[in-house]
Each structure stands twice: as C-alpha cells, then as structure tokens.
C-alpha cells in the first residue's frame, strides 16, 4: 500500500524512522566529538519518541514505560555520561580525521539499499503499516557497525555501538510493538551496566596507552607475538 493511505500517526512513525536513519548518517559524517555525542542524544530521543507514538497509536500502555526508559537512558543519561568523560579526558575538542569520508557515506548508502534488499521478502507478511522499518533499523545497525569500523577513537566507537543498540530498540518497537516487559528491563539493565563499564574502560585504556586511539591497542596479535619471539631468539 502507499503512504498516502496511512493515518497521520503512521506517517509520523515513518517520518521518525527516516530521521533516525538520517541521524545515523550524521553520526557517520560527524567528526567532532561533542557534536557526535549530541547527534547520538538526538537519535535516542527520536527512538523514544517513536516508542511513545506507537504506544499512542496502537494504545500499548507498557510502551509508554519503555519510551520513558529509552528517553532516560539513551537520550539523557548516556550523552551526559559521555559528555562528562570527554571533558574529563580532555578530548571534547578532539576532531577525528576519517579517511575518505565521502567513500564511507557512499558505502553507507549502499548498506541502506542492501538492507532494504534483504528485508524485502519480509514486508509481504507485515500486518503493520510500519513494515519497512525493519529495513531501516537493520540499516541503522549496519551503519553503527560501519562507524565502529571506520573510527579510531574509543569514544566514537562506543557511540557507534550505542547507535546499534538504538537500531535494535527501534526495530523492536516499531516492528513488534516492543518486547515483553521483563526482556525490556533486562536489556535496559545490560545497556546501563555496559555504559558504566565503558566509562571504566576509557580510564583504564587512557592509563595504559596514554590515548584513546584503538589502533594503538595492538599488542596482542599473532604476527606481533611471533616476531617478538624471533627477536628474542636473535
């Protein structure tokens, strides 16, 4: 069916989906630390909004709760925590140089097409108006991974990781009206702990290699190990 046949709220859901996708692109393109944290916060907010909207449209009361949860976690707590960390680590003005940004954006676009192509057979059986959102959320997940691959900054990697989680939440919400409550709670708990642990690790990494450049975390490598031993032998 066509978008014009949808009710206004449904159209809004689709619109939000598009915005979420856009924020992922923005995250990919964004090279300034603080800015990307803010974008991430917006993404979280959008996911929360979508949840609330779904709750309203298909009146699923428990979704309100998870919307609140998402809002609190993804849009407020985590950005705030990252913010604090970034300040503490003194990298708030850090600008990351991504190699061939245009190429990456091109790849990102290709990924969107790909995930649409993958999800195409699914939508046949989708009862909901929000069927293509599966493709969108899959794309968000993949874009998050792409971001993790392309960024050397530990913090931006974490942001990528979190945006993957956003994608998951979004998928769960818009395609299936949310998971059972207990699962939601469990996931939220995990995410929370993860966020804290990330904070811990930033400090640990910082202590061990005086930087957050993950490319310098390469002590443990098969090739390295062998070479070192060969040196020892010589």
């Amino acid at each position: 069916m066509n978008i014009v046949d949808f009710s206004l709220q449904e159209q809004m859901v689709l619109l939000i989906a598009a915005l979420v996708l856009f924020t992922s692109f923005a995250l990919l393109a964004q090279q300034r630390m603080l800015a990307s944290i803010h974008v991430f916060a917006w993404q979280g907010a959008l996911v929360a909004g979508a949840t609330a909207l779904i709750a309203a449209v298909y009146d699923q009361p428990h979704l309100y709760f998870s919307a609140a949860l998402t809002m609190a976690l993804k849009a407020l707590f985590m950005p705030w925590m990252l913010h604090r960390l970034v300040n503490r680590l003194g990298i708030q003005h850090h600008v990351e140089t991504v190699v061939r940004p245009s190429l990456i954006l091109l790849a990102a676009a290709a990924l969107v097409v790909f995930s649409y192509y993958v999800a195409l057979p699914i939508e046949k059986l989708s009862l909901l108006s929000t069927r293509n959102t599966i493709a969108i959320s899959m794309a968000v997940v993949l874009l998050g991974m792409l971001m993790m691959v392309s960024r050397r900054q530990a913090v931006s990697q974490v942001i990528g990781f979190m945006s993957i989680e956003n994608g998951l939440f979004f998928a769960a919400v818009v395609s299936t009206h949310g998971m059972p409550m207990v699962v939601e709670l469990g996931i939220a708990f995990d995410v929370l702990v993860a966020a804290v642990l990330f904070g811990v690790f930033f400090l640990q990494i910082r202590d061990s290699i005086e930087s957050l450049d993950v490319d310098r975390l390469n002590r443990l490598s098969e090739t390295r190990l062998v070479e070192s031993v060969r040196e020892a032998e010589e």
Partner: protein
Amino acid sequence: MAIDFALAAVLAALGSSLVSTAAHKVPSVLRYLAFPLLAVSGAAATVAGFMVMGNGEVLVTTLPVGLPWLEWQIRVDVLSALFLTIIGIVTFAVAIFGPGYVREYEHGQHPLAQLGIFTGLFITGMLLVVMANDAFLFMIAWELMSLSSYFLVMFHHEQAANRRAGFLYLLMAHVGGLAILLGYGVLATFGDGFSFDAMRAAPLTPLWASVAFALTFVGFGMKAGLVPLHAWLPEAHPVAPSHISALMSGVMLKVAIYGFIRVTLDLIGDVHWGWGVVALLIGSISALLGVLYALQQNDLKRLLAYSSIENIGIIFLALGMALVFLGTGLPKLGAIALVAALFHTFNHAIFKSLLFLGAGNIVQRTHEQNLERMGGLLTRLPYTGFFFLIGCMSIAALPPFNGFASEWLTFQAALQAAELKNGVLRALIPFTAAMLALTGALALACFVKAYGVAFLGQPRSRRVRHARKTAYGMRFAQGLLATICVLAGVFPNVVVNLLDTIPRMLTGTGLQSATTQGWLWLTPVAPGVASYSAPLVLVGILVTWLIAWWFSHPRGARSVRRGPAWDCGFGPLGPTMQYTSTSFAMPIRRIFAPVWGIEEKIERQVDEYGLRVSRLSHQQRVYDRSWAALYEPIARWVQFAARRVSRLQQGNIRVYIAYSFFTLLLLLWVIS
C-alpha cells in the same frame, strides 16, 4: 575355559601396572611383584592361545563396559589365538628378563613407577587389540597400546633426540590410528554398526572396499613400519629400555600385522588381487631398504630396529602373495602364502625379541650401544654370545633354524606363481622373490657384521673390556627364546599344523599336503614338488661334525698351542687395527650408494713436506632419505599455512569488527 585364561592374562597385566604405582616408594616392587604378574599374564595368554589353536574353536563374550548400545565384545578365534601366543611368549620372556635389567634403575632418579605402570598397560592394550570384536574396543585398545608405549619411549627423556623420537612416534601413531578409524568408519557405514560381526556382513561396493583397504593398509602399515611410513620406528624403538624395545619390535609390530589380516581377510572378506600387488611391492621395497639401512647402522639397537622393518617387509610380501592368490581364486596357494606369512610373523617375534634382549644385556653390562666401541664380548658374556648367535642364525635364515623354515615356505609359495592366469603377475612374483633372495643375502651380511663386530675380535673400549657376567633371569629368558627358535626351526610341521587352522577359518581351505609325509617331512605343495626335512638336516650336520671331529682330532698329545696371531707377519695386534662396523659395511655402501643420504668428511694433516700423513680423521653420517622425501615437505607446508593464517589476527580491533561486519553482510547476501 580358554577365554578365562585370556581375560586372566588381561587382568594380570592390569594388576601389574596397578601394583607398579607403589614403585616410586618401594622400587623393588617392580622386581618382586610387577614382573611376576607379567609372567603370569604371559603364561596365561600363551596357554589360552594354544588351547584355542589346538581345537580351533571360536569363543565370544562381552564385557559390561563401553558405549551404552555397544558393550565391549571379546572374540578369540584361531587368528587371535596365534597372536595371543606370540604376545604371551614374549611377555613371559620379558618378565623373566626384566627384574635383572631394571635393577640398576633402582638407584638413581629413574621413574620406575612410570616404567611398570605403562609396561602393564602396554601389554593390556596389545592383548585387548587381538581379542577385540568391535571397532570401538579395538581402537581403544590400539591407542592404549600406542600411548603407553609412547610413555615408555619417553622413559629416558633427558636427551633431546629421544624427545624428538617420542614426539614423532606419537604423531605417527595418532595419524595411523586416525586412518584405521576412518577405515572402520567405511565398514561401519556399510555394515551399520561398529561390531565386527556387522562389518563382516557389510555389503561393500568394490570402490569402497578398496578405500577401506587403502586406509587400513596405511594405518597398519604406519604402525608396522612399512617404507616410506617407517621413519619413526628406528628413532623410537632403540631409545626405550631394551626389554620394551623387545616388546615393541617383537610384538607391537605383529599386532599391526594382526589388524591388517583381520580387516582385509576377515572383515572385508572378498579381496581383490590388486591389493595383493600393492602389498607385494611395498613389502619387497620395505624388506630391501630395511636391510640396506640396517646394514649401515652402528648403533646395535637401531640396527635391530631397521631389521624389523626388513622382516615386516617380508611378512607383507608373503601377505601380498596370499592376497594375489586368494584374489585370483587360488585358495590353496593363498593358504601356503598366508601360513608362510604367519610363520614368519611368529619367528620374527621370537628371534627379534631374543636379539633385543641380548642387546639389552650388552647395554646393561657395558653401557655401550655403539658397535664401534664393542668387540670380544663372546669371551666375556658367553651365554649371551651363544644365544645371540642363535638369534643371528635364525634371522639370517640359515637351516635348520626357524627363520629359514618360514622363508622357505615363502619361496615355495612364490614358485607356484606359474599357476596364475595373469602373465604379468607370473612375472612379478618371481621377481619379488628375487628381491627377497637379495634381502636374505644382505641380512646375512648385516648379522655377520653385527655379531662379528660386537662379539668377536678384541674389545674396542674399556667398559666393554670389563663387562661382567649377567643375571640368571636374563640368561634364562634369552635361553628360552633361543630354544623356541631351534624347536620351531627343527619341527616346522608342528607349527605349520597349528597355523593351518587359520587359513581354514578365514578362507575355508588349508594346506592339504603340508604334513602328509609325517612329522619328518614338510611338503607344502606335494612331496614330489618340494620337501624339506629339518630334523634330518640337524642330525646330518651334527653327525658330520662329530665324524669330522672324531677323525681329525689327534689322540693324546697336546694338539693346540696358543700363540700370537700371525696376521701375515704384521702385528702386534691392537683393537684399533680391526675392521670396524663402518668399514665392514663399506663395500655394500659403495655399491648401493644412491639408497642412502651419506655425509662423509675426511680431514688429513700432512707434515711440512706434504708427504707423510700425520693425522687422518674420517667422519660419516648415513641418514634416511625418507625424511627429505616425505616428512619435511609436509612439515614445511603446515608451517607455511600456519604463517598465512596468523595474518588473520594482527591485533587491530577495527579489523576484527570488520570481520564480523562482512561476515554478516556475506551471510545475509547468501540467504536472500
């Protein structure tokens, strides 16, 4: 009844390994408890074997362990019985020999407990292999045998060379075991089930039958030490304590033979003559190369180990003939060849153990393993010298000893090749027989060298000069085996009668006319065709000897005067003037030069005029070509692959994430 004896043997062996656990507290427990138990086990196994071979029955039972749907199945038929007997006799001899041998280990840091435990397990494994009636128990027993013998090889693990040998041995044993496992897998797949009875019933397509044969041939051949899979054998056998070497060379290789016969002739059943050709060729090559390498060894135990390869080759040659005959529908001739093979298996077990025990005796008395440092031992260890001589004569196939009898049978089988339809086979078999003849002659050269250099001449080192007399147990063990050599050689009919039951069971036909002429005459094919009377030969030799001695010996006056050796007027003699082991083998080394990899280094210092050679040193290393040919390439390939693979993990987390990213994409693309 017999099966009780067989199980009792297993239990006794297990018990011996159990009591040995106390040996690290009380070393003497090995001598007073463990070895006697082994003797009991050996005796029981021998009794069981003879009982079953005597009345040709088939005994079956199951033990309440194993897989839930497949308990351990035990089956003792005449084939198992023969090998039970072999294991039993040698184990008995070793158990008698052992106490005297390990006594010296009791002082010092040697882990005696380890020795005792794994000796017991080793024998348990071998006994169970020949008694197993399902692939699962077979494999367990088989690997138990390999693993425990590996630990025994590692008994002297201080030297790096021994460690290398042990590693190689374990690796080869494991690979061989896997090949056998796969072979059984084929049979089990077709015969739904791991029990041998199911496998016997398995309807195999010729292709899969050949696959199974190939796998088992490789697996058992690897254990038996067929060229080119033999490289581990001369490394591993010599480094174990000598009585263990005797068990490994004398018995363990035979267990491999057993497995081969069991699978090809019993489980697969209908054989194809092509397999016979393979076995024939590989066997003759192994025999020839084995003896050639043996001839070049200066380490007595290495020499014996290589000669084991030779004899295994001979056995497989005979087995190959048997397969050819059976595969071309000549069961009578197949029976002759099979009996010859089994007879030689038995003989080799006996005299090779005898020789290894003798070598062990020397090693223990002189702490020398190198022929170049021995000499003149006959006057110092007369008993060992005498028994070792008998062993040498048997292995060199001299009438009327047992080695000759079996090789004679092999030749007789080969000479019946004329009955084959296929002209190529008719030409091939006499040719392999000629290879066998060459092997025999070289074996004689080899053991003349071994005996002459070790026992005759003058001692080449101080330790050897002061060799002391041996413990009675060790003497007795050697004497026992030597007696068996003579008896089996002089009364081959008895042995052949016992062995005859095996082809009867496997193929339904036996030797009709082997012993029709009575106990005195051995006529495998027909009296007119060929006959051999070992007893008369022995009597003849003795009588002529006596007559000659009686006539020539002067009465009364002192007929013998001792004096310095004449030596064409050179002299006085020094031990360094003798022919060494290396120089003795030189002509043959020169003739067959391409067979070995030879590194020779000659340094000469001449005086200032360059006329007189003041100092001359000659170093030479003879190494096995199979290394460069087969083993190193494989090792290199694995190293190369490992190096390539290790690039996969070069430490950058982003690359890792990329891996999982692209894996995901790939899979998604694949499924949609």
